[in-house]
């Protein structure tokens, strides 16, 4: 049983400050919760994201719930909401900023960590990692490797230097660590929770028996 009391949260403006560090995002404080964003959101029509609610949660600082949930990652960055917001709130950019904040807390999704590692290793998010792709290129009379980083090892180095300078590699490594830790905790917590539930059930039964 979840006690209502656990849901009562204090309003915390710190995340608002973090978002509006980028002055371009400041307008988000003027959101009047009209729901135009959610109403046209193709993701919200099939999944749990409510764009307006994401903005709202960020505005009142319910960051823990928001940042660790899937919600932020359900946005396809289609910018439909962004175009229509009557208050000129840069909705999609806010979601992207919130994802940055989540990422810096180590809350990235597994596949995203994987694709980031590709970028770090090869300079491509989607690299040629199998001979069949080169062969496909050849079948179209193209060079086996495109004239991108794939053909210029020193260019890969450049990309890697930039990544190191900005500590993006550390961010990814940190994300993986957090991911592992969370999984372990989950595993550890699960039996406890079951015990708890059983105890609750027992107590309820006893009460009912009285």
């Amino acid at each position, binding site marked *: 049983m979840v006690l209502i009391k656990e849901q009562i949260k204090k309003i915390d403006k710190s995340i608002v400050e973090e978002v509006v560090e980028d002055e371009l995002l400041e307008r988000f404080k003027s959101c009047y919760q009209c729901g135009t964003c959610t109403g046209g959101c193709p*993701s919200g029509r099939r999944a749990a994201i409510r764009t307006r609610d994401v903005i709202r949660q960020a505005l009142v600082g319910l960051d823990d719930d928001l940042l660790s949930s899937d919600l932020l990652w359900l946005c396809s960055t289609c910018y439909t909401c962004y175009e229509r917001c009557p208050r000129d709130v840069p909705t999609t950019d806010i979601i992207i900023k919130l994802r940055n904040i989540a*990422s810096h807390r180590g809350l990235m999704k597994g596949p995203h960590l994987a694709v980031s590692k590709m970028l770090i290793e090869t300079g491509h998010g989607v690299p040629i990692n199998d001979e069949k792709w080169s062969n496909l290129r050849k079948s179209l009379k193209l060079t086996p490797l495109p004239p991108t980083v794939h053909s210029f090892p020193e260019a890969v180095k450049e990309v890697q230097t930039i990544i190191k300078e900005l500590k993006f590699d550390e961010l990814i490594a940190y994300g993986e660590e957090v991911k592992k830790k969370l999984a372990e905790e989950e595993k550890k917590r699960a039996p406890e929770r079951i015990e708890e539930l059983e105890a609750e059930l027992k107590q309820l039964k006893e009460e009912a028996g009285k």
Partner: protein
Amino acid sequence: MTESSDITRDYDLYLGCVAPNRYPMIEASTVQVFKKLGINLHDMKGASCCPAPGVFRSFDIPTWRAIASRNITIAEQDRRDIAVMCNGCFGTLLEANHLMNSHPDQRTETNAILEKVGRQFEGTVKVRHIIDILYNDVGPKAISDMVIQPLRGVKAAVHYGCHLLKPSETRPWGKDENPTFFDDIVEASGAESIDYKDKFMCCGAGGGVRAAIKDVSMDFTREKLSNMKDAGVDIIVDCCPFCHLQFDLGQVEVKAMFGEEYRFPVIYISQLLGLAMGISPYDLGLIATKDKPPGTPPFIPTEPFVKKVVEGM
């Protein structure tokens, strides 16, 4: 072709990741079509991932901006504007270019990083989607003048994709929720653009959704496919390799996940125009050669489309 002399005829072709590494027919057909139009696309040597606007920008904006700016500096050294084939790459390079040009603080910050690899962002080049070049420089009229095999009777579902149009303040078409410029280019080939419900809806691939939350991503695609089916189209035409992948491979995935079967050939705009201009369908990757390795795209065969066109003649 009516030569308009005042347009830019040399571009650096920015490839991105998906086009060269998964759907090289997009790269091959674009180069050929542009050559026919008298526009030279040059290699942009050592370009990396753009990096993707919905993914890497979501993780760390400074990294995203720096890598994007590095790509732009390559074109700056070549002194050529950038032509882009992908909506995502367009979004990243255009936005990054815009931010770097209009926000001196961000420029200073990023240039300090670029300095470590011996580069500086100068703000001297434009970033243009090939659709922008095709529509605004070449023009549908000039394109249709070059058509020798009109794709008459072909009913196309045109998919614009999101980042081609939005955010509109930096896009060349301005704010318009019902644009027709892409349809005009498609129709220049002789094909008919069919209106379908939620035409401007996202394909579901972007924003890292495809990678992380596959079922939601595929449900977008399924809805679009179903709307296209209701409208009675023959093919899907797009202008983005990632949308292309989402529709092509996506039809296989939609079948696996939802049990719904669609078999729309997915055609990239330059494949469509190339065919109409008489370029060999083999060269455009519309008909698989015997060298095509197994397990590579297209996953929905495009031969039936070519057949229909040729028979329709």
